[in-house]
């Protein structure tokens, strides 16, 4: 595995980026003095330390109410990784389950599930997430839930199509002839053989989840202040784009890098796990 990672540059670079953010989220907070929510009233919109008027106490400057930007970005990485993780967990669990049932039993169940999947997929993802938030009310938990709902169909489709292929193979027929029950066949026999595309989809879903939740935060429908969520920080920063551009550039750069890291990793992983698609 490590050897093939070395060969696949995009997966390696992606993994490095992800590691960087893991360190940022779980180790850097020990070295940060300022609380991300603490307000320094006499340090409003200070530029980063290396610019004119910068202050070494605030390495990357402060925001419009005088909070330390570095500290907010660092704690924000925790939030974003958490968001990605939760979105994948929820949508993969539900999506995989539905896909297994749909592919294995076919018939009416399949038609019903795929019908719903088609409806969800015919909506642009952000729009559907906005609708869910409109019903549940804004907030980070509801935003995560909304983005998870939107991510379910792609898991369902992928698992379903793998199941349709796998269930006619000999090892499944053998298990059936031994008298294994449906539950055992689905989870012990078929599921492990659907893992490769599932893992790739999970990686890509991680980045989509982060991006979509940040977009909801930006629209004011996701995380609420004073939580240091990157998307919401960006929407606060919009008003100060001329006077404090660092407030705009830094959170967005974090989102872009983290999302890019996961996409690179996912792309590389696909090449590793599915050599047929290599170079596409």
């Amino acid at each position, binding site marked *: 595995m490590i050897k093939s990672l070395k060969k696949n540059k995009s997966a390696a670079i992606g993994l490095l980026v992800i590691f960087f953010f893991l360190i940022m989220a779980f180790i850097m907070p020990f070295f940060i003095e300022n609380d991300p929510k603490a307000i320094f009233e006499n340090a409003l919109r200070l530029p980063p330390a290396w610019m004119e008027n910068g202050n070494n106490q605030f390495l990357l400057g402060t925001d419009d109410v005088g909070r330390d930007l570095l500290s907010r970005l660092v704690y924000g990485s925790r939030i974003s990784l958490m968001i990605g993780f939760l979105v994948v967990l929820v949508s993969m669990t539900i999506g995989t389950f539905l896909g297994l049932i749909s592919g294995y039993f076919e018939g009416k169940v399949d038609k019903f599930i795929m*019908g*719903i999947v*088609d*409806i969800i997929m*015919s*909506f*642009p*993802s*952000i*729009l559907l997430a*906005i*609708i869910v*938030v*409109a*019903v549940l*009310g804004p907030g980070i938990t509801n935003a995560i839930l909304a983005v998870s709902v939107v991510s379910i169909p792609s898991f369902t489709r992928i698992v379903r199509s793998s199941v349709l292929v796998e269930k006619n193979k000999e090892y499944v027929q053998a298990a059936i002839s031994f008298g294994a029950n449906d539950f055992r066949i689905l989870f012990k026999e078929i599921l492990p053989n659907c893992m490769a595309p599932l893992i790739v989809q999970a990686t890509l879903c991680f*980045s989509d989840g982060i*991006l979509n939740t*940040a*977009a909801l935060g*930006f*629209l*004011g*429908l996701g995380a609420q202040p004073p939580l240091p969520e990157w*998307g919401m920080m*960006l*929407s606060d*920063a*919009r008003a100060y*784009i*001329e006077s404090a*551009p660092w407030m*705009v*550039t830094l*959170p*967005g*750069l974090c*989102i*872009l890098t983290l*999302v*890019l890291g996961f*996409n*690179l990793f996912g*792309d590389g992983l696909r090449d590793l796990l599915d050599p047929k698609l290599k*170079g*596409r």
Partner: protein
Amino acid sequence: MIIRILKRLLKSLPTLLGISLLSFFLIRFIPGDPVMLLLGERGADPETYKEMQKSLGLHLPWYEQYFTFLKGIFSGEMGTSIISKQSVQSEFWSRFPATLELGIFSMIFAIIVGIPLGIIAAAKRNSIIDYLLMGGSLLGYSMPIFWWGLILILLLSVQLGITPVAGRISVMYDIDVWSGFLLIDTLRENVRLEEGLAPFYSALKHLLLPGIVMGTIPLAVTARMTRSSMLEVLSEDYIRTAKAKGLSPFFVVAKHAFRNALIPIVTVIGLMFGSIITGAILTETIFSWPGIGKWIVQSVNQRDYPVIQGGILYIGFLVILVNQGVDILYSVLNPRLRK
């Protein structure tokens, strides 16, 4: 042909019905009493309450309500906005051209830039150029476009002062609505009033940044798709034959390979209509573009439920119809798909 089109539309009927159900139940899922929500905290005396309930038809059993709702869809009566007091239908159609104009502009940008980049990457496979282009495309694909828009505003509008920050056209000009597309309407006005091309340029300048922002992700997707489709075609036997005949590499790529690689590319572009709407929601919010994306976000923030309900319905229907239209178009364009 007509039978095939009808069959396709019939197939998408369950999905359309599903969307109408989703949109119908949306208002009923909201925690609390919709009538109270619509009336606000002050107007809660029992008489107004009853009146409101009746005007919304909420005193009827749900299936009758749904039936009335379906009838409303067909007659184009989608209720009225709580905030503006105008019909949802007229609000939608007055904003839709703005989104469509922006969408078309951004798609043209994505296609004109994306396809050549994809062809170059495929022709120079595994070279530095290929890596750079594909790296750039992944960067574009990962872009949080709400940030990208702000960065472009920062660079081009704030620092260089080239492009305007918001809106569709300078407030100096008052253009009659004819097609709803400002690029067309300004030209028409120009012909009529001999005003010069200033309003047209103003509209074009306003379109530039949002168009680029909205086109970024489609551009990345188009470039990647073009590259992979070209690579597949370039490994075919007839390409080897063409090369063996001694044709110039440019001619082989541009004429023989590209024409055949075009089919999957066109598919992807056609199916990108959904992502136009996604892009519109974010882009229009950043640039205060008066289209349906901004309208929906605003309505969610103001809890204008009739608008959200109608908006979902219209957008859902449009996406499905466009996707079906693309499918039908293909079987016309590509003889191999005709069964």
